[in-house]
């Protein structure tokens, strides 16, 4: 991790020529994404568009077939501590025997490194984060007794204690009640106003323009990206959602030949 020259350091997230495939089928094909710092970006697209895969590829959780990812100019391995992650709520078993406070403290494990246990500092940070997401009173609550909205807040608090410059959130508003959605959005906008960058996989097209200022429309390929006012168009959404099956089933090489260069 010694100083390799930075590549596109002015971008919070730079994804170039990224292709990810599962068992020979492209999930992401030749994807370029550039997100400037300080924006709150939504990633939208139909089911199977590769939204979660894009997030996982950025986090080095899936190995791309081709292409590269840079965060503030550096590869993820060097930027790990600058990136906060909120996985889908359904990614874990909420019957795991632990408390809300303990889950939030897991956000500090990356900073602690091997063998060091979380101590008073981590505990205080976690309590503060729980307070910020409005559930300080649930710190000692067994996580299986939390509602869906409260679980989402716990995940959010865990990302907060990472104290990151870039946050990646996978469907943070899926299946939560209205007050939680409002709280989540307000918190994310607060983070953006403090100069953090947020990339949010989002499923609700209705709210995109109210919540976000940057938009990436994805369906295996990037349909369009940029400021939400320019990109949120009927034509873009039709292209992404209309031809869902055809786009995936069509041999990707054809797409490439027609789309590229």
């Amino acid at each position, binding site marked *: 991790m010694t100083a390799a020259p930075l590549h596109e350091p002015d971008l919070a997230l730079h994804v170039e020529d990224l292709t990810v495939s599962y068992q020979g089928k492209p999930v992401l094909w030749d994807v370029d994404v550039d997100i400037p710092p300080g924006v709150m970006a939504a990633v939208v697209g139909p089911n199977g568009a590769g939204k979660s895969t894009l997030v996982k590829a950025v986090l080095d959780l899936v190995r791309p077939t081709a292409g590269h990812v840079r965060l503030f100019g550096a590869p993820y391995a060097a930027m790990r501590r600058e990136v906060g992650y909120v996985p889908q709520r359904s990614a*874990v078993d909420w019957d795991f*025997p632990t408390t809300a406070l303990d889950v939030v403290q*897991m956000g500090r494990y990356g900073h602690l490194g*091997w063998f060091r*246990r*979380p101590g008073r500092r981590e505990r205080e940070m976690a309590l503060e984060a729980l307070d910020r997401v409005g559930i300080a009173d649930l710190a000692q609550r067994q996580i299986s007794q939390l509602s869906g909205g409260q679980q989402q807040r716990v995940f959010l608090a865990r990302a907060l204690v990472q104290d990151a410059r870039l946050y990646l959130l996978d469907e943070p508003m899926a299946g939560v009640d209205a007050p939680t959605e409002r709280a989540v959005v307000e918190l994310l906008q607060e983070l953006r106003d403090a100069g953090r960058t947020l990339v949010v996989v989002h499923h609700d097209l209705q709210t995109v323009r109210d919540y976000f200022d940057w938009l990436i429309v994805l369906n295996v390929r990037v349909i369009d990206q940029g400021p939400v006012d320019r990109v949120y168009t009927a034509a873009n959404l039709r292209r992404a959602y209309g031809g869902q099956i055809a786009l995936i089933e069509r041999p990707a090489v054809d797409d490439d030949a027609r789309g590229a260069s």
Partner: protein
Amino acid sequence: MDGLLTLLGDHTVQNVVLGAIFLGVTSGVLGSFAVLRQQSLLGDTLAHAALPGVCLGFLVAGGRELGFILAGALVTAVLAALLMLVLTRRSRLKTDAGLGTALGFSFAVGVVLLTYIQNTGDAAQGGLDSFLFGQAAATLRSDLWIMGGIMVAALALVAAFWKEFKLVTFDPLYAGATGLPVTLLDVVLTTMIALAVVVGLQMVGVVLMASMVIAPAVAARQWVTRLEHMVVAAAAVGVVAGTGGALLSALVANLATGPVIVLTASALVLISILAAPGRGLLWEQLARWRARRALRGRQVLTTLYELSAEHRDPHYPAERGTLNTFHGLDTRAALARLERRGLVQRVRHMPDEGPHWELTAAGREEARRTLAQLGAAEA
């Protein structure tokens, strides 16, 4: 009591008890991770896959040398786990099918090897088939060193990598994102489950060893809310089941040890599933019953309140028959409970009618609160 003390003085019994303690602690602690990672069936595959290793160890050592046998068992168990991984990663086989395939294949190899050894008529082969169902009484002092060593190693690993194991068990995706080597930790945890299985081969045998890994953790999960407590509780359940079962089998009727240990553990699982506070079935039933009773009390109270409002009389005496008819059930018990809480009181109204009840001031207050809550919920 005296009999028990004499028993504990016995050399064989000492060995059995110590061995059962090592077994219980190891399988309880490591089993907790296996169960939480939803790898219970992996434990079963590993246990059955230990049999060919037991036989190979025997063949290599030329006799019943526990060190060789357990090393062999560990090797083939881990090989089976790898085979399973390759099958599910490289082909479209689902995990359960992969586990089943690996289990069947390796156990078949084991049984073939076992019968081969038995047919050679080697005098030293005596007791090899005890690895199928376990035989606690065969535990030697030297075996204890091996079992104790594995226990200490397992505990040391869990202590050293506690937060990493916890995170990778709870949320592997997030663990990967924070830079933990998830695959490596997976391999280590799986190997440790194999270790837990291997520790119990002597006492429990390959056929049932998986339940010795699974059962204590399942029982413990019912009683705890934190992983650290679960690990300790599972170790305790493991020790109780292990020592209890081993002593029973060795002393009472010379039964096969494994099944008796597993039956003891299963009894503890059953009790935990039924009776554990918060999660137990009986407990849930009790909570539901209490809630229903409280609901009935609230209903009777608000009915009294509405009746007195309708009659424009805060002290309106309602006859129990009226209340019974309104609710379609006997309200005697509910009224008695409300009376004990000071919310209603019995009044004399007409000499030729049944008992009458009116709200106390506290009762009116409580009824108003309840109705306000209901109204808020509906709004």
